Structures are given as C-alpha cells and as structure tokens.
C-alpha cells in the first residue's frame, strides 16, 4: 500500500541552509547536504530544498549544490525557488533533482506548466501555492506571500493540474509558523478533488497535527521545516506515532 510521506523542507541561501541549529550529531548543520543526508537516514520520505538566494550567481551555485545533494542523498528530492523557464528546469534535473517546484512564475505564465510537463513529464513538476484565507475563501499569494491575487487557490490548482502539474505543494499562510496545525479545509478540498498528490505545508506543531492532515484532510504528504530543524519533533518518533494511529508509513 502506498504510504503517506513526511517531507522536511530546507531553505537554502547562498548554498547554505538558513534554519538548522541544534544538531550535535552532524558536523555542520548549515550544510544542506549533510542535513539532507541526516534526514534521509532518519526515515524522511523525501526532501524539499527551497532556494531563497536572490543574487545573479544563484543559478550556478544551485546546480552545483543539487549535484552534490544527488550524490549523497539516497531518497528523492525536489528543488524550488525562482525557477522560471524550461532551461532552469533542464539544468536542475540534469544535475540530479528528481522534481522541481514552480510558484509565482507559473502563475504569471501558466503555459510554462504545459511546456514543463511536455518536456520532462508531469511526475517531476510540482506546483507550489501560497494561500491565505480571507473574506470567506482561500486566495493565491505570490512572491513568497507578499503579493495578493484575486484568484482562488482551488481554481488555480485545478487549472495547473489540467496543464500538467503532477503534484501540489500547498502552504497556508494563515497557519504557517503558528504551530496550531495544518489548514485542513483547503488541503482536503484539493486532495479530495484533484487526481494528483497534495503535499500539505504550514502549521505543524504536534504529532497529532500530522494525524489530522492525513486522516481528516487526506493529504498525501506533509511538509514541515522548523519543528524538524529544532528537533521539536523527530522523524522516527513521528513516523512511529502515525503508524500507531493507523496511518500507513514506510520504515
């Protein structure tokens, strides 16, 4: 049976992980390769690396880093952040990324998704959506949550899937950083109505929150960053807890 997936997310800036203190068992917690390999050895099912570097040099640095991650990490990983062309994606996939995620660039130029899916296959195209609930619905936000749009998250997700997105990474801005749980309603709406996997993100604070998002919202995967980086929740304990609660997990 297909398992639910636990996905730690690592923010990368200038080739280093931004968060990630408090790891006495690895030499350099700022090293994305070492941190990624550690999570893989602990039972993470996949990794997401989000590049938040803003300089012009980023592309070269990133592809070199992706090569080293692929060399050392024996589980699948997604790379996102500032990807806006077929060429960007080609470089990252050839460097060894398994999937890439697009966000603002795809919203501004939706045909990019068609092109990427045709060129590389839907299975490696993840659409990331940042969404906020206001005035009775969930709206898409762009540029890392700074720019509001008047398009509803569900409508955009549906269009993106029709264009060839193979997976949706949904981050609720209302929940992100609160540690009060995932946004179950919008996650559930997407997961139960779209025929591609949905990765829930934003709000994880306790192990029960993961049970909720898998059982109640039927998310296919759950992503979190700080609770793993700061060891508030450790992956082996989380997977054991979920398994005890009847959620299918890989061990």
């Amino acid at each position, binding site marked *: *049976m*297909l*398992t639910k*997936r636990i996905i730690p997310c690592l923010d990368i800036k200038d080739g280093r992980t931004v968060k990630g203190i408090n790891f006495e068992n690895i030499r350099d917690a700022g090293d994305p390769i070492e941190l990624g390999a550690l999570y*893989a050895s602990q039972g993470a*099912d996949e990794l997401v690396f989000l590049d938040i570097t803003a300089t012009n040099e980023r592309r070269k640095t990133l592809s070199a880093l992706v*090569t080293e991650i*692929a*060399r*050392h990490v*024996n*589980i*699948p990983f997604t790379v996102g952040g500032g990807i806006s062309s077929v060429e960007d994606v080609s470089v990252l*996939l*050839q*460097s*060894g990324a*398994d999937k890439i995620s697009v966000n603002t660039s795809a919203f501004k130029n939706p045909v990019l998704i068609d092109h990427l899916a045709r060129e*590389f*296959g*839907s*299975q*490696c195209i993840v659409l990331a959506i940042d969404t906020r609930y206001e005035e009775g619905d969930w709206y898409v936000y762009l540029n890392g949550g700074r720019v509001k749009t008047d398009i509803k998250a569900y409508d955009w997700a549906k269009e993106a899937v029709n264009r060839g997105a*193979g*997976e949706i990474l949904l981050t609720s801005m209302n929940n992100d950083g609160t540690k009060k749980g995932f946004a179950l309603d919008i996650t559930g709406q997407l997961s*139960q*109505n779209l*025929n*591609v*996997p949905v990765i829930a993100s934003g709000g994880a604070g306790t192990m029960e929150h993961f049970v909720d998002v898998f059982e109640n919202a039927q998310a*296919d*995967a759950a992503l979190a960053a700080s609770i793993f980086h700061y060891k508030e929740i450790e992956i082996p304990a989380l997977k054991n807890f979920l398994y005890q609660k009847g959620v299918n997990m*890989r*061990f």
Partner: protein
Amino acid sequence: MKTVIVKYNAGNIRSVQFALERIGVNGIVTDDETEIRSADKVIFPGVGEASTAMQYLKERKLDQVIKNLKQPVLGICLGMQLMCSHSEENDTPCMGIFETPVKKFTSPVENLLKIPQIGWNNITNLHSVLFEHVPENSYMYFVHSYYAALGADTVAITNYVINYSSALQKDNFYAVQFHPEKSAEAGARIIENFLNI
C-alpha cells in the same frame, strides 16, 4: 567488472550513476554498441515517455542491441516498460523481452485514484536473486502512470488499486518498476544484488 548505464533520452541517468558511486562502483554512461556489448552488467534506466524513448532507441538500433545481450541487464522504471511487449502509452510496440503488456492505471468509479502513483509502496511475493536479504514488504520509491501486468515473468508484486508486476525476470533480463537508486538502503541492496549476479 565493467558496469554500463545505457545513455538515451531518459531522465534519472545521473541518479543511477550516483547510486552506483555510493556503493563504490563506477558506472559508464554510454550509447556505444561495442561498449554496451563488452560490459559485464548493463543498466537500462528511464524516466520519460514510451513512444519517444522507443523511437530514439530504434533510430540508434539500441533496441536490438539490448534485446540480444547475454550478460545481466537491469531495466528501471520506463526501462522496464520498454522491455515489455507493448505499452498503452501512445500505443507503443516495445522490445518484447517480457511478454507482459504495459497498461495505464485507471481510476475506479467509487474513488479517485491519483495518477501518477508517487511515493513509497511495498513489494511482495519476492522471487528473484535481486531480492536477496531484502525482506518481504520492503518499501520502494515509485513514480509511474503505467504498469506491467502480472504474468509468467513476475518476480515481485505491488498493489495500487490492482496487483501489478513491480519486478520481472526472464533469463538474463531483470527489471524493476520502482527506483532502486532512490529507495534508500533497501534500493541500494537491490542494485548490489544485481551487480553480484
């Protein structure tokens, strides 16, 4: 020992090469017929679309080269599907090493099936040297929309709404639907088992 990875217009070649490197093996990536024929072990990877990949192989006569190899060959993902008789993906005649047809996952009326299957699923009914020291129900990483049906060459079974072949074996030909190069330690074990044949 010379291990060759067949180079063609498919993804995941780099990942396979790195997986070999992690177990101390240098994988030579090549589409040269002589190089492939002289290898001790041949890995035929693949992520992509069946008809485009078959056309590319045929234009370079690599389909005939692979089919006539006598040393152990390991097909991965699309590589496995191309070794089957026929794929429903754009109605593509394949190499026919295995008699098994390749079909598309279809959603049953009563519930929504997510296609492609993406993630970790278990392998059961293991009957191959590939799975030595790999326990029943081990989890492997799968990404696919098409599957090889069950048949005489089935040596592992996985369930995604239906039971299908997650591994096939016939004579010197071995094939897996999942990605051993991305399946943590259990996947590395399968690659090592193949190299030890």
